[in-house]
């Protein structure tokens, strides 16, 4: 759309300007992390365990801790979230007040600060269920934290599946569940995956909730009942307790790389699935 008169050119300039400001902000922040943290990041920073409370050594146990905790959180939240979305969109009478109430609370919880989830996890999982500081307590607390996001994005995705698909499938004599599992979910998969990516981002960046439930011990987690320190918590302690700011930013740099990998893999699977939904 070629900008014809002068006004159009100015508006065009404003748009390009605002986009470059956003890109600028991004580059400054990522650049800042890289400059501050890059000197520390090398292969053995990633593969050796921290020593002297993180002053020395690498961050291997925290990387494994992050992967463990994210896996446990997703293993609880994704099946539960997607099933809830399927139930609310396909089985429950959607207009029922009950379903609307659930949607409202779910949306609200998405805005609640994570320290409150941490306290709930501490009281309920760590103390009441006597699971102690562990991957299990942390994983389940994080699962509850990301459950609203996964459920809501899954509901939106299911809503967007064209109604004709269901009708055609049923008309072929498919049962309700066959229609859902073979047509509705696969077509809604891209939307569901986007919800999962957002949730992974939140879990990887989380600190307050994890400190109170999964603990912050530097040891190598061996079983579900061991406490664990994730990279974000490690970064938090290194920075706030003034142990080492360079290592804190080094950890941040590794987190950024981890997020890039997760997003890339997700977009890859999205592209493979996207040509499915016409």
């Amino acid at each position: 759309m070629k900008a014809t008169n002068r006004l159009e050119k100015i508006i065009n300039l404003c748009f390009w300007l605002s986009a470059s400001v956003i890109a600028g902000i991004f580059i400054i922040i990522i650049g800042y992390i890289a400059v501050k943290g890059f000197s520390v990041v090398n292969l053995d920073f990633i593969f050796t365990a921290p020593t002297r409370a993180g002053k020395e050594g690498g961050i291997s146990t925290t990387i494994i801790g992050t992967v463990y905790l994210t896996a446990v959180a997703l293993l609880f939240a994704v099946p539960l979230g997607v099933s809830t979305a399927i139930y609310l969109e396909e089985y429950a009478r959607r207009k029922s007040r009950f379903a609307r109430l659930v949607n409202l609370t779910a949306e609200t919880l998405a805005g609640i600060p994570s320290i409150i989830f941490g306290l709930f996890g501490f009281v309920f999982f760590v103390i009441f269920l006597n699971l102690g500081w562990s991957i299990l307590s942390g994983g389940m607390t994080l699962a509850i934290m990301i459950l609203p996001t996964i459920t809501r994005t899954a509901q939106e995705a299911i809503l967007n599946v064209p109604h004709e698909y269901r009708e055609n499938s049923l008309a072929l004599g498919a049962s309700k569940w066959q229609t859902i599992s073979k047509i509705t979910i696969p077509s809604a998969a891209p939307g569901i995956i986007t919800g999962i990516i957002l949730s992974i981002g939140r879990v990887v960046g989380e600190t307050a909730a994890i400190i109170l439930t999964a603990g912050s011990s530097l040891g190598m987690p061996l079983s579900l009942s061991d406490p664990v320190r994730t990279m974000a918590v490690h970064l938090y302690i290194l920075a706030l307790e003034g142990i080492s700011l360079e290592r804190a930013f080094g950890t941040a740099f590794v987190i950024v790389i981890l997020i890039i990998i997760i997003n890339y893999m997700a977009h890859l699977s999205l592209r493979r699935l996207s040509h499915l939904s016409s």
Partner: protein
Amino acid sequence: MANDVKIKSTDLKVFYHDFQALYEINMEIKENNVTALIGPSGCGKSTFLRSINRLNELIEGTSTKGQIYIDEIPLYDKDIDPVNLRKNVGMVFQQPSVFPMSIYDNVAYGPRIHGVKDKAILDEIVEKSLKAANLWNEVKDRIKSPATGMSGGQRQRLVMARVLAVEPQVILMDEPASALDPISTAKLEELISELKNSYTIVIVTHNMQQAARVSDYTGFFLNGALVEFNRTDELFVNPRDKRTEDYITGRFG
């Protein structure tokens, strides 16, 4: 060609919440014949069509009184499983909507959900159904490619192939050609007349010339009532009811 009655409706009434869409429909549809249902939009012809495979139940708040029989078996008995019923009563919709899968998977979808696992049998059914729908020659070399890249006419024939793959006895068609160009419509009508002697076909259409061309019997619906039902040539040449005559001569509706 056995001319006994395949589908019979007795005092069939359908309500959407408190709106009555159909009033006491009594109709007998012959086996291996094409029966056309015509009438102005909103006259209840689609509602009647969708009550044969109980797809009306999808819409919240619908209720059906009276009965429909296929081979003397009452469809609205409480122990009839609508899933199995629809296996035997295929349906084609106005919008040719293909599943977001390959052409092969689209056609194999029906047999797969009814338990056919063996690849060889599936291949055979897919080829047979695509040939029966006059689509095989156009797609046989790109059968594994996504079905979304097909023209409107091809899509509708793919939907037909999908329905045939389930080997139904009855095929319901809800204005199948309204979204197609003239050439695809002609191909579809030719296909319908070919399938006639193997299936009982009921087609809802706005297009009276189409009804005249493809159907053996025609029913004229108006405001939820079956005004007249007769052999197609009889009904179009000398309609008994004045309202039918006004409609088919295009004075209203």
